[in-house]
């Protein structure tokens, strides 16, 4: 029973984690390529050839826009951390330098004012869009639109405010400040972009786009010095890990079920020996060996099924409690786990009930009646 509860809870949580991750990633669109400067360590870099990777620049972004036909949106990201202040009200936030297309890629909504205007890749206007939380902190009583805030020593004018969104993949959207990418590189004195996001037109273009981007940048930099991550690969490998975890958990559950099976067998053996006289009586009034066997098998199956149902109930209760505590986490036991746990319990009951049932069937009626 405990085994069944454990299987239900753990597979529910495992499945929940898998769904949570998948949901988070796919909410960003699966047509996304992420270009990161530097070789991925795990794919092996060449020791001798140039330790520091070349910068990922706005020129690279423009080249990709021009040459990679599959790309629908190419969004540069420059990243920094600084204090944002409105007079005495200040807050430490992540500042992202990007372009107007960032809104589409990240599915952001603007509640007041407007998002970064399109077409500003090089100029770097002194404007900013505030995350919901930042806006509320710096301007508790009034609208921030049109007001000037300081980022470090730089003064920028607020042109928009984002709708509350919460965390998205470890990035707290509500605590962001968005500025034009060139402005960001100037403020933080950056030579390289942090990331370039590329959204392809259709999912099937993903691979060819990846190849083309890699080839283009290798050509421009004179070496292979960027890494391209696809949503698919990230989601895929996370998915794999979590599925493996869920299966492992199910395996542990199966072992505990086997242990429970031995318990059932023991219980049934005791039951048979306690009821030897009863078996004798059944035979005396005309029960065949098969009938006696079926009786004890049924009892074993009912016993383990009862245990399994109790376990399911317990597990379900625990999952419910878990969901009540963490509403965002879509934990629910996968149907396959519930079904297979029940089937397994019945099978275990039948399997481990066979030996005791055989023992009952083999009893000699006269001796059984005498309780021997």
């Amino acid at each position: 029973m405990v085994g069944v509860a454990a299987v239900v809870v753990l597979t529910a949580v495992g499945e929940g984690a898998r769904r949570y991750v998948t949901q988070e990633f796919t909410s960003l669109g699966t047509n996304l390529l992420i270009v990161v400067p530097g070789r991925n360590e795990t794919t092996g870099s060449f020791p001798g050839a140039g330790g520091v990777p070349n910068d990922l620049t706005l020129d690279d972004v423009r080249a990709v826009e021009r040459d990679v036909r599959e790309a629908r949106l190419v969004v540069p990201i420059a990243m920094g951390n600084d204090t944002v202040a409105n007079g005495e009200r200040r807050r430490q936030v992540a500042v992202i330098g990007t372009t107007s297309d960032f809104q589409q890629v990240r599915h952001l909504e603007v509640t007041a004012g407007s998002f970064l205007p399109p077409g500003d890749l090089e100029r770097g206007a002194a404007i900013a869009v505030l995350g919901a939380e930042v806006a509320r902190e710096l301007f508790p009583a009034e609208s921030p639109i049109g007001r000037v805030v300081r980022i470090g020593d730089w003064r920028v004018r607020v042109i928009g405010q984002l709708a509350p969104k919460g965390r998205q993949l470890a990035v707290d959207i509500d605590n962001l400040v968005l500025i034009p990418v060139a402005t960001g590189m100037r403020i933080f004195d950056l030579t390289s972009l942090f990331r370039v996001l590329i959204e392809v037109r259709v999912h099937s273009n993903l691979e060819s786009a990846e190849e083309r981007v890699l080839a283009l940048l290798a050509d421009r930099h004179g070496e292979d010095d960027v890494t391209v991550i696809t949503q698919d690969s990230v989601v895929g490998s996370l998915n794999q890990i979590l599925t493996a975890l869920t299966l492992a958990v199910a395996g542990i559950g199966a072992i505990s079920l086997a242990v429970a099976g031995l318990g059932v067998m023991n219980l049934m053996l005791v039951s048979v020996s306690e009821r030897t006289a009863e078996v004798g009586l059944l035979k005396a009034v005309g029960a065949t060996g098969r009938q006696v066997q079926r009786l004890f098998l049924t009892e074993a199956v009912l016993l383990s099924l009862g245990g399994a149902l109790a376990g399911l109930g317990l597990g379900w209760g625990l999952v419910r409690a878990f969901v009540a505590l963490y509403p965002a986490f879509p934990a629910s036991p996968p149907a396959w786990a519930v079904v297979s746990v029940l089937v397994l319990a019945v099978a275990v009951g039948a399997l481990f009930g066979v030996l005791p049932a055989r023992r009952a069937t083999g009893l000699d009626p006269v001796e059984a009646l005498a309780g021997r």
Partner: protein
Amino acid sequence: MIELDGVQRSYPVGAEPLVALKDVSARIAKGEYLAVMGPSGSGKSTLLNILGCLDRPTAGSYRLDGREVGTLSADALSEVRRHHIGFVFQSFHLIGRLSAHENVALPMLLAGIPEDDRRARISTALDAVGLVHRAHHRPNELSGGECQRVAIARATVMRPHILLADEPTGNLDTANGEQIMRLLERMNADGLTLVVVTHDPNIGRRSDRVLVLRDGEIVQRVPGRELRPDALFESRA
């Protein structure tokens, strides 16, 4: 009609097999009332178990209504017991978890008799032993005499034509024992073949015929009314 010819039953105990019944031959007519008597360990229960197809002879022949049953398989014997034989035991052997009603239902459940039929037959059987009002009591709520009456209802509910009772009054006081014997004798009067194992000479005298066993052999066959009080004693000499 029961025909035993040279029936033997031995148990492989140690080097020399223990012979519980040696060369027993007997005929028991349909509707007869037979008492089996003899000292303890003389083989009375062994004989009754063979008659009831709970046990098989190691040698000899047992024919029931002309059919050889001594060599049938265990399942075939179950079938014979189910339809032809009712058992009453000294210690009742009721199932404690089940009510009187359910205990009586048991043989019919095993025989696959439909629900409606079962109900009617349980009522009839409990009525015959005067226990309709106790149908939903469990054995531990019933007196010894009442328990034995439930057992008799269970033994007769399949309408067997042979009723075998192994010391049915052994656990009862005189008054209850007398009531049980009256019940069994009334069923015998209605045509049921009755074989009773007993130590009580008074019961023996009421039977049609007495078989006296000693050391696994029939040492005396007398009509019940001719059984003298010292008959058992004599046979031992």
